[in-house]
Structure formats: structure tokens, C-alpha cells
């Protein structure tokens, strides 16, 4: 009978996986090692909003005199959560608003990657590779390459499909909610033997089994206080509460992801993708639902991380922004600059990041889009340099090739 792995057995399984990893010549970090190993370790979470999220709705420039005329029925002047005289936050971004009030969130209202591209897919590739289109690795993975000499930094992506940003030379983990696997069972071991000579599948299975053990411990924490040794049915029921688009599911998802990063868990870099931001028609409702999900996910991450929140930076970005003007179908089309959100207990308080270009007609990029005032790579580099400790020279050359001109934004943490 297949049973999910209870916490005590999970520790055994971790050791078992370590032994297995060693047998395969894999360098697996000490997942089950004492908690002190992770004390004070810096954490970084990258959230990619796919489909070009509308920055002018995420952080509406309520103080800009041209905003209402451009956005008409999509303008959030009256409903935005107040930040200051210049900006607000979308009404669904309640957690972000609270964090901002506590000095733990900042808005970068007009950022973009250096290439002016209006195709989602190409722009997402560039956002994640931060290099030419012949490069098949992501910048977060190349940052791990640099860190792997110094720490045991580990990357994890959420979802069955690996995002480009975390693909590359350093093997990383991935996870999404599903049915439990007994890591010590005979079949996984036999399959691991079959994968012995296979560089891709062997490492992927070993990591998958290791993550599975942690995941089950995380999911067990969703149970009411004191519940131990959950039945498979109960584990399955709890896992199902992570699915769906509701705020509640997002909050639990955030908490479960935090479990991979907390205490003994070695994950330091996490990449999360949220889809559904391509709002060409009837934008208001669709965007509100997605931003509500994002907000609850961030809330779940924060509360799930507990004390580790103070060592954490979360960066929310999108591939490009949307047109300054509303279109003919109550939506917006592909634009240029958008908003990035920076959150975390490790942040220093501060105002907006980068300048506000304004929405004056003469300032619009190609007379249609919000113009970028900061290079997203500068933001990435600032966080990686000062928060994660990635080597400055590596940032200019290998992590973000040919990017010396895009100086890191310093002083964020």
C-alpha cells in the first residue's frame, strides 16, 4: 500500500536520498541537515507575471494629470489603495499595500528590459535569458553557477514545466501539487538505477524524490494543529486545497512554497510563474482576479517564511507593459515599460525605484507606451549583488552578458 511519508520517515528518506545521490556522484546539498545551516541564509523569490501585466493598473499613477484621460473607464483613480500623492496600488494588492506601509515593499513604476520587443514569447525569453536568443540558459541559473562556488544555494521552480530563467548548468528542483510518492519504495529505486547513465533523467528523478519528501512535510503543516501521520486521503485532500484561482488557494500555495525555503530546507532561489495577464479585452475583471491571486500568494509566502522573511527579497516582474491608452475592446495592447514590485523583510524602506517618465503625450514611447526609465537588469543586478552576494564582475559578464552599462541599483537591501 502506498502511503504518504510522515515527518519522521521523511527524515529517514532524506538520508536515503543522500546516499543515493552520493552513489550517483551527484552533489546534493544537505537537505536534512540541522536547522542552523540555514540560519540567516538569504532568500530570493522571482515571480514572473506572464502575458504583459499592466503596470498602470498595478501601481496606478493617480497623481499624473494625463492618467484618467488615457485610461478612461479603466482608470483606478477613485478605487486605488493610496500610497502617496503620485501613486496608488490596485485595490486587490492589499498585502502589498500593508507591506509598503511597513517599509517592506517598493514600486518600480517604469521598468523594462533593454530590447524593445512586443512579442510575448520573445520578450519572456529575453526577460529570462537576459541574453541573445541563441542562449538557452536563464540568468537565475547563471547566478547559481556563480554562487555554487561559495554556498550551497539551491534553486526551485514551481510548476511542471521548468521556466527558462532557472534552466542551465546547475541542476535545480521543481515541484507542483500532486499525488504523494513514497521515495523509498522499490520502483523509484529501480528506475533510478535505469537512469544511471542518463545525465538528464537521473538527476531530475533524484531531485524530484528529494523535493517530494519536503513537499509532504509542507503539506502536512496545512493540517489542523497536532495532526501527524496523515492518511493518504487526508494528504490528497490537503493537496487539493492548493489548487484553483481563489485567494485562499493562493495563500496556501504561498505558505507551501515557503516551506521549501524555511529552516532546514536548502532552497534559496525560487521562480514562480503566474499566467493570464494578457488583457486585450475587458481588462478590469480579469486583471483584478489575477492580482488578487498574486497578492494572496505573496501574503502566504510572507507568513509561511516566518522569521526567514527578514532574509527574503521577492521581485515581481513582467515581460513588458501595456499601451498607455485603453483600446477599442476595454482592454490594452502590448506596450513597453511596466511596474516591478520589490518586497521582503530584507528591504530598506524607500520611495519609488527609478524616475517617473510621466504620461505626457510627448513622453510616451512611440506615442503609445509608458517609456522605461530603468533597465530591469539593473534591478536584478542590485538584488543579486547586495542581497545574494553574487560577484559584481560575474553580474556584468556571465550572469547578464554585456551589461556593464546597466549598473546595479544599489542600496535596496
Amino acid at each position, binding site marked *: 500500500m502506498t502511503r504518504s511519508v510522515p515527518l519522521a520517515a521523511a527524515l529517514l528518506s532524506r538520508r536515503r536520498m543522500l546516499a543515493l545521490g552520493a552513489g550517483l556522484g551527484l552533489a546534493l546539498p544537505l537537505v536534512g541537515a540541522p536547522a542552523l545551516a540555514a540560519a540567516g541564509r538569504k532568500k530570493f523569490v522571482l515571480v514572473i507575471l506572464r502575458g504583459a501585466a499592466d503596470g498602470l493598473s498595478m501601481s496606478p499613477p493617480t497623481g499624473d494629470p494625463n492618467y484618467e484621460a488615457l485610461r478612461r473607464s479603466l482608470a483606478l483613480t477613485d478605487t486605488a489603495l493610496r500610497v502617496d500623492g503620485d501613486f496608488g496600488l490596485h485595490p486587490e494588492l492589499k498585502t502589498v499595500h500593508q507591506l509598503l506601509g511597513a517599509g517592506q515593499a517598493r514600486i518600480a513604476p517604469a521598468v523594462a528590459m533593454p530590447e524593445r520587443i512586443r512579442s*510575448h514569447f520573445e520578450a519572456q525569453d529575453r526577460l529570462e535569458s537576459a541574453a541573445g536568443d541563441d542562449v538557452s540558459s536563464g540568468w537565475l541559473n547563471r547566478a547559481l553557477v556563480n554562487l555554487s562556488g561559495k554556498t550551497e544555494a539551491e534553486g526551485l521552480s514551481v510548476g511542471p514545466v521548468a521556466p527558462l530563467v532557472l534552466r542551465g548548468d546547475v541542476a535545480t528542483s521543481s515541484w507542483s501539487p500532486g499525488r504523494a510518492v513514497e521515495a523509498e519504495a522499490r520502483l523509484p529505486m529501480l528506475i533510478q538505477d535505469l537512469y544511471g547513465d542518463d545525465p538528464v533523467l537521473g538527476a531530475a*528523478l533524484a531531485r*524530484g524524490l528529494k523535493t517530494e519528501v519536503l513537499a509532504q512535510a509542507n503539506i502536512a503543516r496545512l493540517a489542523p494543529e497536532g495532526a501527524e501521520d496523515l492518511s493518504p486521503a487526508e494528504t490528497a485532500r490537503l493537496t487539493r486545497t492548493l489548487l484553483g484561482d481563489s485567494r485562499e488557494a493562493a495563500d496556501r500555495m504561498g505558505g507551501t512554497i515557503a516551506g521549501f525555503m524555511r529552516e532546514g530546507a536548502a532552497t534559496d532561489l525560487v521562480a514562480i510563474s503566474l499566467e493570464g495577464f494578457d488583457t486585450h479585452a475587458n481588462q478590469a475583471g480579469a486583471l483584478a482576479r489575477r492580482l488578487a491571486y498574486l497578492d494572496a500568494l505573496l501574503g502566504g509566502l510572507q507568513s509561511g517564511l516566518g522569521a526567514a522573511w527578514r532574509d527574503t527579497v521577492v521581485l515581481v516582474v513582467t515581460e513588458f507593459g501595456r499601451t498607455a491608452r485603453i483600446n477599442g475592446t476595454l482592454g490594452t495592447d502590448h506596450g513597453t515599460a511596466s511596474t516591478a514590485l520589490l518586497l521582503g523583510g530584507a528591504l530598506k524602506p524607500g520611495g519609488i525605484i527609478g524616475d517617473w517618465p510621466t504620461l505626457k503625450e510627448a513622453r510616451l514611447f512611440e506615442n503609445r507606451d509608458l517609456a522605461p526609465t530603468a533597465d530591469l537588469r539593473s534591478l536584478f543586478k542590485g538584488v543579486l549583488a547586495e542581497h545574494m552576494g553574487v560577484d559584481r564582475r560575474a553580474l556584468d559578464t556571465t550572469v547578464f552578458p554585456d551589461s556593464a552599462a546597466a549598473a546595479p541599483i544599489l542600496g535596496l537591501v
Partner: protein
Amino acid sequence: MALPDRDLQAAIAVTRFGLGARPGEIAEARRDPQGFLKAQLRTRPAKPPRAMPLDRTEAIRAFSEAQSAFVQANRRQSPEAQALHPELSTLRKALRDKIQSDVVQRAAHGATTESAFAERWALFWANHFTVGAGNFVRTATIGPFETTAVRPHVFGAFTDLLVAAETHPAMLLYLDQHRSIGPGSALAAQMAGRKSSRAVGLNENLAREILELHTVGVEAGYTQADVTEFARALTGITFRGFSAPERAGETYFRTIAHEPGPRTVMGVRYEVQGEGQSTAILRDLAARPETARFISRKIARHFVADDPPPALVARLEEAWLASDGALDQVAAALISAPEAWAAEPKKFKTPYEFLISSWRATDRIPKMPQELAILTALGQRPFYASSPEGWPEEEAAWATPDGIIKRLVWTESFAPKAVGGRDPSDLAAQALGARLSPTTAKAIARSESRDEGLALLLMSPEFQRR
């Protein structure tokens, strides 16, 4: 470039070009592996089928009407809402059943067809012209889209496939074309006078994706101005509502919504007005060498390797250009290309391919929607590609820790049901032929149960790849 021996060719024909071997299929292909595949090239049917079958438009109409009646009653806070709800549930279920049956039928066809190369070829084109699910109504158009706009044309002229796909109601809905109205059109003027609450304007979505994803590709050097001009030319193409008394769900040209005037797209000026304008642009795009290059590479990537041999791409491109995009000729060039027959399997199966090949290897037919539910967890829920780009192609996207674990979990529950009383070593020989490695054969022979043996076969590196 020398071809591998005939046993290996037979295994490659069935597992790489096809959808995985059914028992006996590799033996059948062995006589003439290339001929086995070429026999599957079909010509298109004489009469194109109706874009939206009547029973489908009827189910959509009934559901939509019940839904809006319910929403209105609900908004009035009328007690009627309560009474309308059961009927709405019934109609919603009826429509959902149709969508699920589209998915199950397609999977069952994949699991059983004797022309699995033809099916892989059709799946490639359905993915090239991805229409993603949305609300029930949109999702209910995807099955008909594949059956009527894609499949009939996949061995015909690319230009016909392109026009059929871009003008099908499913695509018009998916990429917002049905809402796009020329700002200078008669309809826009009328609506401005009426102070209508509905917004009027251009929507560039379809124009952009046609250029970027369906024809010349993003590297062809077109500009934002080309996209806008093309979007203007496309205005007027829409479809009749699903509740229209006659010809429901039929694509037509609504002259009053069309932006008047000549257009210039990628350096070509189109003086022709009206419906012929966008058709002329589509036909020119289909014929451009950038289109031949872009799609030839995509075909090679799908069939042979994520980073395909340039010589293979060149052969496909040449066949495309020489035949004016006759897709049966391009398919024939793929089959004849020695680079496509390299011994090493370079492609990691997508979740859908993994499932279909597992059913084929065990001679099983999926019958219930629940049998496909695992595809959601594996990141490839049928019809639910998350963007118009379709499903990812490359190994790095699918061979993830989470992906492998979820395949393992599925295999563990599938194997006991699927193995029957059969010998897993025999199933392995039938499924992989000369591609079965001694290591895997030995592991299966040593397995402690038939279930375990079959699970090892399905999870083996050579079964996971093609």
C-alpha cells in the same frame, strides 16, 4: 549520412515519426520503413466540412441563452434565478460533455490509429495554430477547429491551411478578432453617433500572432506599423453569433466593420478592398521564404531534435519552396531525410506523447475523461496551452524533477490496470524493437511482478524519448 540498419529504422519510423508502437507495428514497418510512413500521406478531402457542426452551435446557443437569462435574473435579485439554475446546470454539463468528448476522442484516435505519423503531423499543425481554452463557449470551439480547419488541410497547400485556420470562429474568438472594428469604418461612425456604451476600435492580436507565430516568424523584420496595417486589413472578418437563426457560428465578412483604404504590409501595397484584402495578405505571407524557413525549422525541431541539424532544415525548406508549400511534399522530404533517422533519440516525449505511447504499447484505448486528468498535473491539459505559442518543444521544459515524479506516479497506477496477463518483456520488445537497450531489457526480465516490469518499460530512458 548512412541510415541505421532496417530493424532500427523500423523502430524509429514507429516511435519517432509515429506516436509509439502498438504490438506488431514495428514488425509491419520493417518491410519498408520509409514506405510505411509515406503510405500515410493523404490528400485533402474534396469538400471542406462545416466549420462549426450544428449540434455544437445548438449546445452553445442553449447554454449561452440560459446563462444570460440566469445572470439577468440574478442581477435583478429576482426569485426566478433560483428556478433557472437547474436548467443552466444541465446545459452547462451538456456542453462540458461535448468538450470532454472532443479530448477523449482525439486521444482514443491517437492510441489506436494505424496512421500514427499522419496523426503526429496533424497534432503538430494543431499546435502550430494553437487555440487555447477559455470560457466554455470558446473551449467548445476547439474540437471543431481542429477537425474542420486543421486536419483536412495538413497534407494540402499551406496557404489553404493558413486561411482556414485564421478565419475559423475558434481563432477569431481566441485572438479577439471578432471584436476588432476599423476606426474609420461605417460601423464605427454609426456607433459614435449612437453614443453606444460598447467600445469600438482595432484589436491587433490576430494580426500580430499570424506574423509572429503562424507565418514569417519574429525574425522576419516586420514592424509595429506592419502589424497595425495588417490588423486594419483584417477588420470585418467575424462570425455569426451562435444564436443566429441561420448559419450560426459561420465566418463572414462584415463590410461595415472593415477599415476602408489600401494597406501596406511588409513592403507590399494592397489596393484591393474589402474581404479580398486580408486574403491577399495571408496568401502572400504563406508564400514568403521567411515562412518556409521559420516553419521548416519548427518541423525539424518537433520531429528530430530541439537543436535540429541545419542540413535537415535546409531540405525541408527546399521542398517547401519547390512545391509552393505543399505540405505532403514537405512531409515526404522529412521522411526521406537521412538526418531524421539518426540512431540516437533526441526528443524527450511531451506528457501527451508519453500517455498516447503508453496506451499504444499496451493496446489500451482511453474512454473516460478521468483517464486524461493526469495531463493537467503534467502541465499539458489538452486544449489548455497557456499562450498562442502552443506547447513547449524542448527537453529542458518537460524533463523536470516534478515532471518525472508525476510520470512515475501515473505509471505506478497505470501499469497494474494495463498489463493484463502479458509478459512485460514481450511488451517491451514490441514497444521499442531494436531501440530496447540491454540494460532496460535486463531490468524488466528481473522485475518481481508484471506490473513492475511494465512500469520499468514505460519509465525507461528509451521509452521516455523518441
